[in-house]
């Protein structure tokens, strides 16, 4: 894993959580949309929070696809779940919401999960195609790729 790849993973995490919060804030400003006035959905895009939220979610999709091009799905998903932790910290220290003990335990579990997965290699090496007699598992030394 290089610094550039960690930055892409950070991009996935940040874009998803900030994008979701902005969409949520924007849609609350727009108000509830009834099925009789579906055109209001299109007008909702004019709300700055909604527009920025959509941009960030596009950024999320691009960085998620980039991460999947060089890392396993079972690496990317847990590694980017730090976004839940980030949202809780935003809720506590920025929005001054009350965060219960069970939520803090949830934050701890997710952080531990992220710690576990980032200890290991990011990509399964498939030497079966090139070297059929070698072990299928990626040796720890392959982790620090060029």
């Amino acid at each position, binding site marked *: 894993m290089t610094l550039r790849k960690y930055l892409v993973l950070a991009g996935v995490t940040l874009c998803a959580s900030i994008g979701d919060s902005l969409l949520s804030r924007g849609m609350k400003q727009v108000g509830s949309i009834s099925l009789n006035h579906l055109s209001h959905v299109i007008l909702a895009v004019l709300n700055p929070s909604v527009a920025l939220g959509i941009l960030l979610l596009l950024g999320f999709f691009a960085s998620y696809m980039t991460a999947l091009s060089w890392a396993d799905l079972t690496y990317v998903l847990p590694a980017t779940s730090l976004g839940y932790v980030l949202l809780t910290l935003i809720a506590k220290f920025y929005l001054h919401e009350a965060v219960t003990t069970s939520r803090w335990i949830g934050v701890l579990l997710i952080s531990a*999960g992220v710690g576990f997965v980032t200890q290991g290699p990011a990509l399964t090496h498939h030497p079966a195609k090139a070297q059929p007699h070698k072990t299928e598992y990626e040796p720890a030394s392959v982790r620090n790729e060029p």
Partner: protein
Amino acid sequence: MKQAYAWSAIAAIVLASTTGDVLLSRAMKQVGDVGALWWQSGLWMVLSRVLRNPNFLLGVLAMTTAFYSLLFGLSWGDVSLIAPASASLTFVTNAVAAKIFLHERVDHRRWMAAVLVACGVVLLAA
């Protein structure tokens, strides 16, 4: 009865988003390292390779299905059940599906990570 509807929506969301994640992951492995490809052949090449990949298009279709299942589910059940239950189950089903369909090496670290994150997501919603 309402519970049964909510759980069938959760099952649909989990199935569709797992399918989508597996297809998108397979598509991007076929495209190859996006950074290197961009460096060598430019952004246009990256976009055309991604957008012409059948797995990518099917993956987006599956993700769209998951999104609409979520919308339907939310109209039948509580957001406090459907959103965390589907998000947390997806971490575990993705680990199983990645092992079976993508032949990823899901070692004890990755199982632990999937289960811990799944439990954490449930607790965050509690």
